[in-house]
């Protein structure tokens, strides 16, 4: 199914049935499941022993069933920056997305757990995170756009700019956005710059790396609106 080099994945999920199904899904689609964990310490131990390309982790696991997935992401990113992090969440809340993006500005994903029902989109998200992109679940992004709020700075954005910001947040590249919206890449880049200005983000030089930063900053600026 894929021509990319085989991805090595560690799966962390405390429900045995679900973990088994996830592993089967990944294996059947050509990924190598390099380790399975049922809780936070196990996950950290497996990653420390042999860092994989990608960690797919439930947000809520033993021991405390709180936000172990986010904690794992923060610790793994600090020690093994090359490992992609895809966190599965139950409730589409923005607060965790902000925390996650604050500790990792690339190769990170935060998607609703129901997404695993849609095999193709789930695998795409996994591959994009492993490839270094940032993926925020469209459901979370949509709900935030839908969320009416007084004095929303996003209201200054033109409808086309908001569509682009949503796609950026979901982790699409400029060229993917251009294809999807039938714009030229130049137009997309121009819009991205104006979005950055509207949200009061520092202007950045054109370049691949800073581009990623601008994306993350735009999403963060957007998500943080939810906190105020």
């Amino acid at each position: 199914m894929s021509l990319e080099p085989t991805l090595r994945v560690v799966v962390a999920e405390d429900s045995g049935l679900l973990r088994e199904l996830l592993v089967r899904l990944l294996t059947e689609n050509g990924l190598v499941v390099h380790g399975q964990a049922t809780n936070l310490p196990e996950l950290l131990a497996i990653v420390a022993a042999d860092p994989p390309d990608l960690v797919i982790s439930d947000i809520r696991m033993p021991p405390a069933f709180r936000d172990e997935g986010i904690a794992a992401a923060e610790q793994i990113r600090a020690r093994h920056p090359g490992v992609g992090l895809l966190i599965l969440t139950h409730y589409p809340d923005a607060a965790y997305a902000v925390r996650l993006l604050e500790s990792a500005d690339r190769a990170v994903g935060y998607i609703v757990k129901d997404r695993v029902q849609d095999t193709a989109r789930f695998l795409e998200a996994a591959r994009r995170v492993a490839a270094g992109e940032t993926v925020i679940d469209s459901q979370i992004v949509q709900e935030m756009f839908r969320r009416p709020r007084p004095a929303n700075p996003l209201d200054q954005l033109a409808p086309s700019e908001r569509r682009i910001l949503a796609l950026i947040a979901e982790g699409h590249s400029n060229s993917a956005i251009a294809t999807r919206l039938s714009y030229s890449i130049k137009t997309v880049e121009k819009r991205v710059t104006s979005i950055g200005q509207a949200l009061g983000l520092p202007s950045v030089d054109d370049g691949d790396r800073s581009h990623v930063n601008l994306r993350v900053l735009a999403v963060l600026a957007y998500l943080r609106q939810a906190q105020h």
Partner: protein
Amino acid sequence: MIVRPGRRLWIGPPAAVVVGCALAVAAQWPVLPYRPALAVANGLVGVLFLLTGAFLGAEDDQYGNGRLFVLAGVAWAGIGLENWGSPPLKLAGWLCSGLFSVVGVIVLLRYPEDRLAHRHQRVFAVLALVWIEGAAVAIAATAGVPTRGGRPAVLFGGAGSPLAGQLVETIGRAGLVVIALVFVGLLGVRLAQARGLERRTLTPVLVAAIAVGVVTGVRRAAIVLSDARVPAILLQLIEPIAMIAIPGGFLLAALQRRLARAAVADMVLSLTRPGGGGDVLTALRAALHDPTLEILYWVDDETGYRRADGTPENRVDGTPGDSTGPPAGRLSIPITTSTGDRLALVHMDATLTRHASVVDAALSAAMLLLENARLQAGIRAQLAEARASRARIVEAGLAERRRLEQNLHDGAQQRLLALSMQLAGLRAAVPDPAAGRLIDDASANLRDATRELRELAHGLHPAILTQAGLGPALESVAQRLPLPALITIPDRRWAEATELTVYFVACEALTNAVKHAEATRVSVTVTEDDGHLRLRVDDDGVGGARNTGHGLTGIRDRIAAAGGTWSLASPPGEGTTVTAMLPLRR
């Protein structure tokens, strides 16, 4: 109420007083014709001692000291025997003088108690008596007793060596100086250790004793130094005049004590009268001069003794006591009602035992007030128990919701998710389009069921609240509202029970705003000030909400269980404001 010895018969001492007075007059008789002032002054001191003894003896707790005073008065009168000129009477005068000094020392050291409190004081008293009387006898047997004729009369058949006499006299006097110094030291220690009522009782007496000590010392020094330039009569008069200060001091203290009994009852009553500015605790502390006094009220057999605010007694180290035994160094007085039921337990400074009658007067005056206070303490204890019980019920409810959410999350939700993954696998494996459509329909139904279950679980207990805090949880609620909501909240955490209460109250208010108020925008503001968390939910709807609705009753119960207060302002046409204040437990 307070156990105290029964009143003893006062037969012996009145007879002693009469005999003593007669002796005082008889002893001074020879001096009266040529030194009338001195004779009268000396006689007066003896009579004053005797009368003070009688006065003190009439007091329950001063019986023993009264007897000693009578003895001192008789001894003082006996000193005058030396005026009669006969050498044996002269020696008797000396012995009486020694007895007077030692009895005085004992009274001053033990007053207002009935016995010398410490072993070293008793040893000192015995040694002083033996030394003083021994020295008098030894001087009489060596140097001899001076007579009017000039030649000293040596008693007990002694040789009468002037050198031996001088030696004995010097050693005897040196011992007296030591005794005097030790005595002053012991008095100083007593005064330094006295507290509260005891200090008040002791002060006039000790001041008098110190005055006498100073005057006597000055007089002795003046005799040695003045070389008769000061008229001899003045030097002789000054000692009896100063000596009057001692019975005077005791009389003053006894008078003070009698007045204190009446004053203490008045004080308790006036302080606790409406507008008197104090409760029964403040009144008793002030009346008994004991700021550490504590009152514990009997609630019932199960609860035991409680403080006025309904809280259990704390020991000095902060751990709850069993309220049965008194703390160390404390006097514990159980108070019972006229029907014999337990009423209260009063802890006070142990030195107040010596003022049983004053304490008794104060507690009697406070009786009715104590009964009232006990009823109040009982009600407060019950109220505190009811509050705690309601808080526990709410807490248990919250814990149960949290458990249910966790069960749904770990069980049904995960299984449904697994099922939908299996359906997706089945869909891929079934080539028949008709069957495929059926599977698609099943998948869609399953997705809806999963979503509904997730919302149910979220409503039971917002996981994000526990994990991320009140701000993100309220934001998550706002996200699902169909109208604009402005959330303002400090970025910090509070106790989980507090956060949950604020969360549910905010949800209830927001639900009302959406369902009934026809609001177009709402704002939720959480602020922390002065140990309280304040929640305010405003909407711009039609207003007119009444605080009897089911939802608002729920709000009221939750806030009350957390010990908080709330208010509702909803004038018709002007929107609705719900405010809640919750105490922050430290």
